[in-house]
């Protein structure tokens, strides 16, 4: 069953003065099945982040609609939407978006506290996740006291703790060194293997090579997509590189 469906998404930005219009997305349609691990690739300015924001209902499309678990998010009220987002989506951001005023543990608890869960439930849910992500020892530390990789793992824990239907990741390796990035990708692979659906936006071929399917966006449209099939990560990386070269040299859509 498709957990996420994007239908003919269109987004046009209008500059504040004068009607200078910029088309970020012209026509994007795709769907994500339950348990899939999808990466979306594209150059800077190709509309990746716009797409992710629309998928996350942080932004409204100019045309088209997004169905999450079969439900359209366009008609929802702000309050409903927030609750829906909180219960169904987990976010991992490039710059972590951890709050300096909270310890890592409290940062991870944040969505649960907003969802009004009792402390014991939160604690019981946290422990296995923290163990899996290897952050059990540093839970009481503050974001400014730990490394980037540790911060990002805490952010992943925050995304996972609500048992979301879908994890959305926006350039999760963007602010990490290569070792931390590898570690994070391994974690993504593991949680996906346990059945977690992941949609990741990235422009790192290395990161995308861990995904089960890679979508390429160019000029606001889905330009191409690659399935992993039985390829290894290395073969996948090769395929992605080839496609990127093709994109960069201006190959025709096939």
């Amino acid at each position: 069953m498709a957990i996420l469906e994007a239908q003919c998404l269109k987004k046009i930005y209008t500059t504040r003065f004068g009607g200078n219009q910029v088309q970020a997305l012209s026509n994007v349609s795709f769907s994500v099945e339950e348990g899939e691990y999808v990466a979306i690739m594209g150059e800077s300015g190709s509309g990746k982040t716009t797409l992710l924001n629309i998928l996350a209902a942080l932004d409204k499309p100019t045309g088209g609609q997004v169905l999450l678990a079969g439900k359209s998010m366009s008609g929802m009220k702000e309050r409903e939407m927030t609750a829906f987002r909180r219960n169904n989506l987990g976010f991992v951001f490039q710059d972590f978006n951890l709050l300096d005023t909270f310890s890592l543990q409290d940062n991870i608890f944040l969505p649960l506290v907003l969802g009004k869960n009792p402390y014991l439930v939160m604690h019981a849910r946290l422990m296995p996740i923290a163990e899996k992500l290897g952050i059990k020892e540093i839970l009481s530390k503050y974001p400014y006291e730990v490394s980037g990789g540790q911060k990002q793992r805490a952010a992943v824990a925050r995304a996972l703790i609500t048992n979301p239907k879908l994890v959305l990741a926006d350039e999760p390796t963007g602010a990490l060194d290569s070792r931390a990035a590898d570690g994070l990708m391994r974690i993504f692979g593991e949680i996906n293997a346990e059945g977690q659906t992941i949609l990741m936006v990235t422009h790192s071929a290395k990161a995308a090579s861990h995904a089960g399917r890679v979508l390429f966006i160019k000029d606001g449209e889905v330009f191409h997509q690659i399935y992993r099939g039985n390829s290894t990560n290395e073969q996948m990386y090769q395929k992605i590189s080839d496609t990127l070269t093709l994109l960069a040299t201006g190959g025709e859509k096939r």
Partner: protein
Amino acid sequence: MRIGFYPKLAAGNIKKNKRTYVPYILTCILTIAMYYIFKSLSMNPGMKKMTGAEHLAVIMQFGSIVIGLFALIFLFYTNSFLIKRRKKEFGVFNILGMEKRHLAVVIGWETLYVMLLSLAAGIGVGIAMDKAMFLLIGKVIGTQVVLGFFISPKVVAITIELFAGIFFLIFVNSIGMIHISNPIELLRGSNAGEKEPKTRRLMALLGVICVAAGYYIAITTINPIASIFAFFIAVILVILGTYLLFTAGSIAFLKLLRKNKNYYYKTRHFTSVSGMIYRMKQNAVGLANICILSTMVLVMVSSTTSMMVGMDDILNTRYTSEFIVMSHETDKARNQKVIDTVRTLQQDWDFDVANEIEYMFLTFSAFCNGDTFVVDRNAPVTAIDSSYVLFFITIDDYNRIEGTQKTLNDDEILIYSNRVSYNEPVMKLFGREYRVAEKLDHFIGNGIIAANVSNAQYIILPKLAQMQEICAMQKEVYGDISSDIDTFYGFESDEKPERKIQFYNEIAHTLKEQGFDARTECREEAKTDFVGLYGGFFFMGIFLGVLFVMATVLIIYYKQISEGYDDRERFVIMQKVGMDLGEVRASIRSQVLNVFFLPLVVAGIHVIAAFPLISRLLALLNFVNTRLYVICTLATFFVFAVMYVVIYMVTARVYYRIVSR
């Protein structure tokens, strides 16, 4: 670089940052104007012609020093906030290739612009308001003064010198702030990796102890003589305690809340408790400042207002009759002669006379030890707390004055206490024991005693012979500083004020000419002095009150804005993680409300705790109308709270705009 580059850049910078610079420049202008007005008033030649002007001039002099100090501290505070906000901007300049010394030149130009602008506008506003204020004081004091438009070049010069100095210090401070940080730090500016504040339990505890001790002194100090000193101790303890409580106490308390998991992990408490911990770290000192300033405003305005409003009460307590002649002659016959002289004058002048009061009295001081009053010339000074003024009068005089028919046996007395009541069944004096037949709740009073800051016991004796005996015995102990039995003569009159004063001068002149040892007082004449003094207090109270309120307003405004910028990112993240706008708003409101009203609430508590002490201090100034004081305090608090709420609403709106942009 091209000439004119720096001045242009500096002007551009101020324009770009106008949201923060406009209030800052306004603050500078107002502070300068206030200082100018105060200084100019204290030096105005016309002031000398006004009644009670000597008092006022001293008060004004003192006031201008206070404002100068205040200006220094406050402008420093607001400027360092400004520079902190602009660190990122300076960081960009730095990275683009401007050296620190170039930055210093830019900041120098900016400071110069602000200084020139605010000095010109400030002195302009000051001169305009000066005239208005002068007329206002004249109105308050109740004398007609027609003054020319007074512009003193000397005052202008003093103002310019002082504020040029202050701005120079501000400039040096700004450069210092820029100089010690490297470009990366500058770029990150004020929101670089904030650490969680440490819990300082010892300091929190010390704060509690300080405030408690201050309150204890304020509430328990009975004797007004001791309380002048106690007052300062209490004030210092409370100020110190307030700072400690706001800085260490608040954080210790919030962390305690955080330890309680069932309380902390609730949607409502989660963000606000953690947010408050950080907020208190940045704001504790500012909030403590606001709290102390508010307390000062409240105490100052309420006490000066009640003194002004209750002026007649004060005069009536101090001057029990409109005209008072106290004859201190060697014997009863000569005392009588003094009064006869006054009576003759009344007839000569055809002066309206009513409510004549005449009695003989004896007064000296003694130390109270249980039910014994000890008369000892060499008593230690530390015994001042138990020091009393004893005031004796006979039952005959008492009955005549009060129109009563009381009788006393030879070993019985009546007693009236002005401040500390006497609760023993007997009273012992010079080895003799008297039974207290009755404790009186009213007595005609005597201005001399009212003017004395000691506690007094008014003792009504059965016979004149007993008074003479006591007089003889205290003469033995006190020798050259002993008292005599004096005669009091007081009366009221319906004449016009000018004629009253003329008549008073006539009495004083005649008695002196005829060589009598007598003291004359006139309420009407004292009134002009009192109005001068209390009018000065009042004016100063209102004036400093306005100044402090203005400071409070601006501190709060700056706080809200600086926090708005810091909080914006935080709330953006929370929204991404799943907090809806309503929750964001509620969380903001609860934090802002806490921060905002904490100082007001604490100030209110301080005022309540200070109440007994202040009312006793006012009693020293003959102000004993506690009800009026309560009303004035409540009214002041109410007005202040209303202003506070208005400021809150205005700033909260600005804050929302910043956070939700």
